[in-house]
């Protein structure tokens, strides 16, 4: 019987997966952009970003735009690798007989 890969618990959460999916195609994105696109509350998003940061999936730069504080998020190398593995694992669940490269 085929053993399924365990899905990465860090990514297997709606908001964290949304954040990483947004960042995977971008060089960087502001906190407000991610908040707007995910529809999350600031508090919840901050908690999940901290979680992704502590696991090394993203990097966060806190700076200023004029006088306004600005949080810029970027996906890390580890985040890219983990996202890729997560997508492959999902594919295995959906098509268990298909071999992934």
């Amino acid at each position, binding site marked *: 019987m085929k053993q399924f890969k365990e899905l990465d618990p860090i990514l297997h959460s709606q908001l964290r997966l*949304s954040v990483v*999916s947004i960042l995977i195609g971008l060089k960087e994105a502001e906190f407000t952009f991610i908040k707007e696109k995910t529809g999350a509350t600031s508090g919840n998003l901050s908690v999940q970003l901290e979680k992704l940061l502590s696991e090394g999936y993203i990097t966060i730069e806190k700076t200023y735009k004029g006088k306004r504080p600005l949080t810029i998020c970027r996906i890390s190398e580890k985040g890219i690798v983990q996202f890729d593995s997560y997508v492959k694992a999902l594919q295995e669940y959906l098509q268990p007989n298909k071999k992934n490269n």
Partner: protein
Amino acid sequence: MKNTELKENINVEDGFKIINEMINTAKTAVGDNSFYYLLWGWLVFAAATINYYLLVYVKTEYQWLPWPFLMGAGGIITFVYSYFAKKNEKVVTYFSKFLGYTWTAVVIAIILTAFVGSNYGVKTAYPMLMIIYGIGLYISGRTFNFVPLIIGSIICWACGVVACYVSFDYQLILLGISVLLGYIIPGYILKWQYKHETV
């Protein structure tokens, strides 16, 4: 994913749905770039038309005057507009960075070609300018898979080749045609498309 309930645990189908939705969301983060195509398209079109009028009808030796004025104005407007656009930018895409470098190279090539033209005669430079315009359009069109820009680039290249065989007054007409079909019309299509996609 506009919802207020964000689940901690999701199933496999949800996972794919979220990934697709968010990647598409990020794709549409590319802003409306039609401003630059329209600004430069109209400025070059106006400069070529005025230059043609001064050359053919007024027959003045200062027929080149529209160029420094209109191109200088374009440079200032572009600088100010891009400064404020950058300030309001919430996201940086790899595409926007790549295209920024591409158009910087195109602008440098245009300035250098104009410099070469000032030494070897403008008739030598104009076909090259149209060919360089086409390069920027082609890369942008391919990057965004936007067919009007790709067609525009081919028209610019064709006008550039034809321009090698005609007199300077006809080169100006060809330049006007190349920016009309390569910049202005695709610029309006891009603007229309962006407006309808983001509604």
